[in-house]
């Protein structure tokens, strides 16, 4: 036994022992052991805030551990910065991409390298990057600027950055959270070819199906500790993994009691709007949503979903058409007008639009109700009432945080989403606009969010659910609308929706044929 500890195991690419990392008020890693074998894909699972990203940031040299030791290739290492980690053959693709939006793909790849020494002959490096990209099936134009790329392409740039540096150990922090299913499959193909070359991969994900597909072994974390260490994927089940993550059984039983829909709440007629870049994003959208119904909007990212949500919530100007809520025009008005009509918004961008990261939980919770009693009296805010209001929501929606005075940026993804939902539901919505409400959330948090949305439906609010996750839409929605290039190209009753048909239309398969009355039983003529 002792001998085994002394002689480093040659099959281990990485060995982490007893890692401890604290943040003010939390122990993010509490004595974590983790090992990665050469040439394997090792999945790291755990609920939101379990400490997965922290552990990998420690490995990558971005955070210094408070205790513990790390061996790479059998040698003890102490990385002082990611630069040291790169030198040791480690590359990490962060959960939030670390790219310079105004620079080109090649420029992003070259940042931090010692070569070229001074003058950059960009043409030569464009060719090198293009060649590397082609070799690994990571199609992307080296001359494009990052802001022009889709998220999927941006991720390929992140991987290219690491490959160009000759990384033999690749850490991917939730790489598929922002990818369409097809893009995820492309990524897996790339990963398999890299693993075949002897690269080792740490793969963090909340999607258990993907983990089963790509991983060789699994380590599960919960509240800063390891609950299952390096078990072979063949010995696990999805339900078992979920239990290890959450600490109890998670069964998502979606009960959708049939509900008589009420009057029309949202009505859009012929709405057109432009994207940030001034291109047409919505090209004549007409739809209706009734009280007590969930309309799912399915589509591949970038087909006008974000603009649709923004038009509904007063955040984007529409160049044509009308948007009414309960008969009151809200299109081309201010967000305040939408709020006054009880339009709730769970936005895609949770930190930029959905919350103010540097303000406290309490301040974020009162953002929609600060003008009304009991939070404010006349023009002054009643701090006692704010605290009571915030604490009540914190308990009702189980937002895990030291106190309501905690800054919002310190919340984990799942808890931040609970906060946003708590605020929006507290505003008693008549129309709920939810965009990608469960992206990046753990299985437990997803169940919570789904339940909250269904409760809203039961309470008689109209809901428009915009998601790239077709399974989610089919599970929650009463009707499914498919959006492609800013047009609705199909409207189905969820009960008898044909998944293949929806998938085809999402990719423009039926775009040449305009939607027929049969497709769209309730569409506005």
């Amino acid at each position, binding site marked *: 036994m002792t001998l085994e500890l002394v002689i480093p195991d040659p099959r281990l690419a990485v060995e982490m022992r007893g890692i401890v990392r604290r943040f003010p008020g939390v122990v993010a890693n509490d004595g974590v052991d983790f090992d990665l074998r050469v040439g394997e894909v090792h999945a790291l699972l755990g609920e939101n805030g379990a400490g997965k990203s922290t552990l990998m940031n420690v490995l990558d040299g971005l955070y210094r551990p408070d205790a513990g030791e790390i061996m790479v290739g059998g040698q003890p290492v102490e990385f002082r910065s990611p630069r040291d980690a790169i030198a040791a053959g480690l590359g990490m693709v962060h959960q939030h991409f670390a790219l310079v*939006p*105004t*620079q080109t793909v090649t*420029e992003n790849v070259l940042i*931090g390298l010692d070569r070229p020494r001074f003058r950059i002959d960009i043409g030569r490096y464009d060719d090198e990057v293009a060649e590397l990209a082609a070799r690994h099936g990571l199609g992307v134009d080296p001359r494009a600027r990052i802001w022009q790329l889709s998220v999927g392409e941006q991720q390929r740039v992140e991987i290219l950055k690491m490959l160009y540096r000759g990384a033999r150990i690749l850490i991917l922090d939730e790489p598929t959270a922002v990818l369409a299913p097809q893009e995820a499959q492309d990524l897996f193909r790339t990963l398999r070819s890299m693993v075949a070359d002897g690269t080792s991969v740490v793969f963090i994900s909340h999607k258990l199906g993907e983990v089963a597909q790509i991983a060789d072994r699994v380590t599960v974390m919960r509240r800063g500790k390891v609950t299952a260490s390096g078990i072979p994927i063949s010995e696990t089940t999805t339900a078992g993994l979920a239990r290890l993550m959450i600490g109890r059984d998670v069964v998502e039983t979606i009960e959708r009691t049939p509900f008589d829909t009420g009057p029309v709440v949202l009505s859009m007629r012929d709405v057109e709007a432009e994207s940030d870049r001034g291109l047409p994003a919505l090209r004549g959208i007409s739809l209706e949503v009734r009280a007590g119904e969930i309309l799912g909007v399915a589509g591949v990212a970038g087909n006008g979903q974000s603009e649709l949500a923004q038009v509904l919530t007063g955040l984007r100007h529409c160049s044509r058409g009308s948007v009414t809520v309960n008969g009151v025009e809200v299109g081309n008005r201010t967000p305040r007008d939408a709020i006054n009509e009880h339009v709730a918004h769970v936005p895609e961008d949770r930190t930029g639009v959905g919350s103010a990261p*540097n303000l406290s939980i309490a301040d974020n919770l009162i953002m929609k109700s600060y003008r009304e009693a009991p939070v404010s009296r006349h023009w002054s805010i009643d701090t006692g009432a704010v605290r009571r209001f915030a604490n009540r929501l914190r308990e009702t929606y189980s937002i895990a945080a030291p106190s309501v005075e905690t800054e919002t940026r310190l919340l984990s993804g799942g808890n931040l989403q609970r906060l946003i939902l708590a605020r929006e539901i507290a505003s008693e919505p008549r129309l709920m606009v939810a965009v990608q409400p469960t992206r990046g959330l753990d299985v437990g948090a997803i169940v919570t969010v789904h339940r909250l949305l269904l409760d809203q439906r039961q309470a008689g609010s109209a809901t428009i659910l915009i998601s790239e996750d077709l399974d989610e839409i089919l599970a929650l929605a009463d009707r499914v609308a498919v959006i492609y290039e800013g047009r609705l190209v199909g409207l189905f009753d969820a009960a008898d929706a044909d998944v293949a048909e929806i998938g085809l239309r999402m990719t423009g398969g039926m775009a040449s044929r305009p939607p027929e009355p049969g497709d769209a039983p309730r569409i506005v003529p």
Partner: protein
Amino acid sequence: MDPTIILAAGVASGTVLLFAAVGEIFAERAGVINLGVEGMMLIGAVVAFGTAVATGNAWLGLVLGTLAGGLLAVLHAVITISFQAEQVVSGLALTFLGTGLARVLGEDLSKAGAIALLPTLTIPGLAAVPAIGPILFTDQSVLVYVGYIVVPMAWYWINRTRPGLHLRAVGESPTAADTLGVDVYRLRYAYVVVGGLFAGLAGATITLAISPGWFGDLTVNGQGWIAIAIVIFAQWGVGRAALGAYAFAAIQRLLIDIQGPEQLFGFPNPFYVNHTLTFFLGMVPYVLIIAVLVAVSGEAIRKRIGAPAALGISYVRGERGH
């Protein structure tokens, strides 16, 4: 009212704005706003002039004046990068500090007589080129020629070299730079100091070449602030900043010259007749800057040029929200 004279004068005094603006571009491209430019220019101006008076050597004055500006910038770097204090507050404080310090140092200098100035040059061949020769290459200070060289070099540095790539990365996305092993703190320090050196050089250019002498804080007279406005006007581009600096200075000269003659295009000159009207003339350059700024900003947004994304934000590794 000779256009050649006005443009030549614009190029000469525009060189001061150009140096200060290029320095500010370096600092801001790295993500640090330096509002202390005015103070750093004053310090550079007084140290340069004082040295020239004391030693009779204008070149030594130029070197020490430049270094003095850099020294004040080190303070800005320590305050904003090491202690992560608010950049705007630190910059304003340094302008006050620089102004006060320069007035104390320069107390006896206003009485100083004529000093040896930096030489002026006429470039043989080039001066004979019609139109531009008499403007750009005739009887200009050696520092004006330095300006001609600095602009393409700075552009090349920022856009075509490895250090420039890192400079842009640090100002746009310090997290991306840091995760790839670029030392964000060191680079920001370096470029803040470079900005200060340029501000010091700009100050020295005033007192040793363009309008020699020491007139208290009127020596610089707000040109540091104008340089900062030019950086915004130029959308952080070196070439545009140079054009802006020359044009601004030429317009200023034009507006002074316009007040001279009794007749203007055959009519009585209103500015000659009614002196109060000249105050409106004084506003013109600033109104022009605002107008151009508004005109170009839409285009800038579409092309994604403009303020570096991390401008004004201290970088803390591992802090959420970056």
